[in-house]
C-alpha cells in the first residue's frame, strides 16, 4: 500500500497524466475516429525523442551543469554519413549502422575531452563541439539528401502488430537504460556522482571513467536516433536534428528527472515525449495560430512542472 502511494508521489506520473489528457482532448475533436492513427503517430515520433532523451537524461543525472547540446549536430552527422555510406544498398545496412554508432562515440569522446582536459563547462563545450560537428555534416555532402536503403525505409515506417517498429526499438532501448540505471553498479555510480562529485570520489567511484562513458552513451544514442530518423524521413537533412535540442532537454525535465542530478527515471521520458508530440497535435487540431500555440505549449510545460513540482532543484 505504502509502495503504491510512493509510486504516485513519483514525478513521472504527472507527465503520463498530462499526455493522457492531451491525447483525450485531441481525439475528442474527431469523436474518436482518429484514435488509432493518432496513437500510432504519437508512438512513432515519441520514439525519436525517447532515444535522444534517454541519452540526455543520463548526462543530466551526472549533476548540475552537465548537459549535452551537441545532440542535434550528432544526429545530423550520423544520419548524413551513414546514408552516404549505405548509398541505398540494402547490403550496407549494418556497416551504416556501425558507422553511425562510431560517429556517436567519436563525438562523445571529443565532448568529454573538452570537458575534462580543457575544463570547459559542459554546456559550452558541447555547444562548441556541435558547431564543429555540424560543419562536418555540411562538408560531407553539402546537404544532399540521399535515400535510405529500402529495407530500412520499410522497417522504420511500418508497424508490427499495430505498434510502430521505431517505437519497439525505443522500448528496447528504454528497457536497457532502465536496467543500467536501476540494476547495475554503473547506474549507482552515475546517481552518486550526480548527488555529490566529491563524495563519489571519496567513495572510490571511478568518476572520470563513469562520466566519460556517460557522455559516450549519450552521443551514441543521439547518433542511433539520427540514423533511424534519417531512414524514417527518407533521407538525412542538415537541419533534421534542430528540433531535438530543446526537445531532448524538455522530455527529461518534464519526465521528472531532477535537474539537480542524481535522480532519474525512464518511464517519465516516455510520458513526456508523448506529451510533447500530442500537445502540438492538439493545438494544431484546434486550429490555433502559431503564436497562441507557442504560448499554450509554454504554459502547459510550466503547469506540469508546477504540479509535479516542489522537488528539490539546484536551479
Amino acid at each position, binding site marked *: 500500500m505504502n509502495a503504491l502511494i510512493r509510486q504516485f508521489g513519483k514525478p513521472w506520473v504527472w507527465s503520463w497524466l498530462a499526455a493522457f489528457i492531451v491525447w483525450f482532448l485531441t481525439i475528442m475533436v474527431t469523436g474518436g475516429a482518429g484514435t488509432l492513427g493518432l496513437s500510432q503517430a504519437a508512438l512513432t515520433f515519441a520514439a525519436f525523442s525517447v532515444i535522444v532523451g534517454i541519452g540526455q537524461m543520463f548526462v543530466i543525472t551526472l549533476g548540475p551543469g552537465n548537459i549535452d547540446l551537441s545532440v542535434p549536430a550528432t544526429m545530423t552527422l550520423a544520419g548524413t554519413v551513414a546514408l552516404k555510406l549505405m548509398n541505398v544498398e540494402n547490403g550496407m545496412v549494418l556497416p551504416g549502422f556501425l558507422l553511425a554508432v562510431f560517429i556517436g562515440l567519436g563525438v562523445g569522446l571529443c565532448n568529454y575531452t573538452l570537458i575534462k582536459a580543457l575544463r570547459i563547462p559542459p554546456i559550452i563545450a558541447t555547444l562548441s*563541439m556541435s558547431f564543429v560537428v555540424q560543419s562536418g555534416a555540411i562538408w560531407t555532402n553539402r546537404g544532399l539528401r540521399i535515400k535510405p536503403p529500402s529495407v530500412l525505409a520499410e522497417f522504420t515506417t511500418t508497424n508490427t502488430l499495430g505498434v510502430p517498429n521505431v517505437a519497439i526499438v525505443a522500448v528496447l532501448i528504454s528497457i536497457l537504460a532502465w536496467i543500467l540505471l536501476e540494476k547495475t553498479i554503473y547506474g549507482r555510480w552515475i546517481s552518486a556522482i550526480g548527488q555529490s562529485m566529491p563524495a563519489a570520489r571519496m567513495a572510490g567511484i571511478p568518476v572520470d571513467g563513469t562520466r566519460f562513458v556517460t557522455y559516450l552513451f549519450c552521443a551514441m544514442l543521439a547518433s542511433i536516433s539520427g540514423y533511424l530518423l534519417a531512414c524514417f524521413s527518407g533521407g538525412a537533412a542538415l537541419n533534421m536534428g534542430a528540433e531535438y535540442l530543446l526537445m531532448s532537454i524538455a522530455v527529461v525535465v518534464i519526465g521528472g528527472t531532477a535537474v539537480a542530478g542524481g535522480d532519474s527515471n525512464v518511464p517519465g521520458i516516455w510520458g513526456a515525449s508523448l506529451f510533447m508530440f500530442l500537445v502540438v497535435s492538439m493545438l494544431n487540431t484546434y486550429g490555433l*495560430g502559431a503564436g497562441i500555440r507557442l504560448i499554450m505549449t509554454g504554459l502547459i510545460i510550466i503547469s506540469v512542472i508546477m504540479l509535479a513540482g516542489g522537488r528539490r532543484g539546484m536551479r
Partner: protein
Amino acid sequence: MTFRLSSDAIRLVIPALSLSLLLAAVFWLQPRAMSYIGLNLLFNLAVPIALATVAQMLVMAVNDLDLSMGAFVSFVACVTATFLRDAPAIGILILAGAVAAYAAIGVVIHLRNLPSIVVTLGMSFVWGGLAVLLLPAPGGQAPDWVRWLMTVKPPLAPMAIVASIIIAVIAHFIVKRSSLGVLIRGVGGNQRSVERAGWSIVAARATAYALAGLFAVLAGIALVGLTTSADANIALRYTLLSIAGVILGGGEFTGGRVSPIGAVIGALTLTLAGSFLSFLRISPDWQIGAQGAILIIVLALRLMLNRLERREKRR
C-alpha cells in the same frame, strides 16, 4: 612577496587578456578596424549582447539559469518596434509588465522550489508566442530616440565602446558594490545563511529577476536601435550567447560567483570572435565549425590562466 591579487581581480584578468589578444589579431588581419568607425562597426552589435549577458549574470548569481533570455529579448524588440514607437505609454506599460513578470517568475521558482531551467524553458515558448502575435512577419520601426541613441557619435570613443563601459560600470556598481548586490550574490553563495540573517529570500530572488528583466528590456531596445526593426526570432541566440558570455567573463553556474565587468568583456569577446573568423576567410563549409573552435580556444586560454591563478594562490 607581499603583493597579492585578489581572486576577483584574477578572475577579470583572464577575460581581459583574451579580449586583447583577439583584438590584436583582428587589427593585424584588418588594420582598417583600428579606427573610430572601425571599432564602432566591430562592437556596436555587442552592446545588446552585453546587456543580455548582464541580465543572464544576475539570474546566474542566484544559482538559476534563464533559458528564455533570447525569446524575451526578441519579445521586447517587437514591443519596442511597435508599441513603444506608436503608443509610448502603452509600450512602457507593457515593458514594465514584462519586468514584473520576470520578478513573478523568480517568486514562483522560489516558492514552489522549481528548477529554473524548466520554468524558463516554458517561458521561452510564451515569450516567443507573444512575439509572434505582435509581429507575425518582421517589421515595425525603431523609435527615433532609440535610433539616435544607438547611432550617436560621441567624441573620443565610438558609441559601442562608451556604452560598453557605462554598462560595465553600472552593473559593477549594482552587483559588486551595493548592498543589494551583496544580498543577491549571498543568495547564490549560501541561501540558508542569508535567510538566517533575517533577509527575505523571496524578495531577494524577485529583485534579482526583476533587475535581470530590466537589463534584458534594455537589451531589446538597444537591439532595435541598431537593426531599426524587429522580428519574432531576432534574438533567439542570445540565450546561449549570454550564458557563454558570463562563463567567458569568469562567472560560474553556481555559488554566486559572477563578475559584471567580466560579463561585458565576455560579450565583447564573443562578438569579436565572429569578426575575427570572417576576416580569416575560411571555406564556407567550415565557417560554422570555426566558430566552435574559437570558443574552445578562448576557453582553453581561460584554463591556462586559471592554472596561473591557482599557482598565485598557493604562493
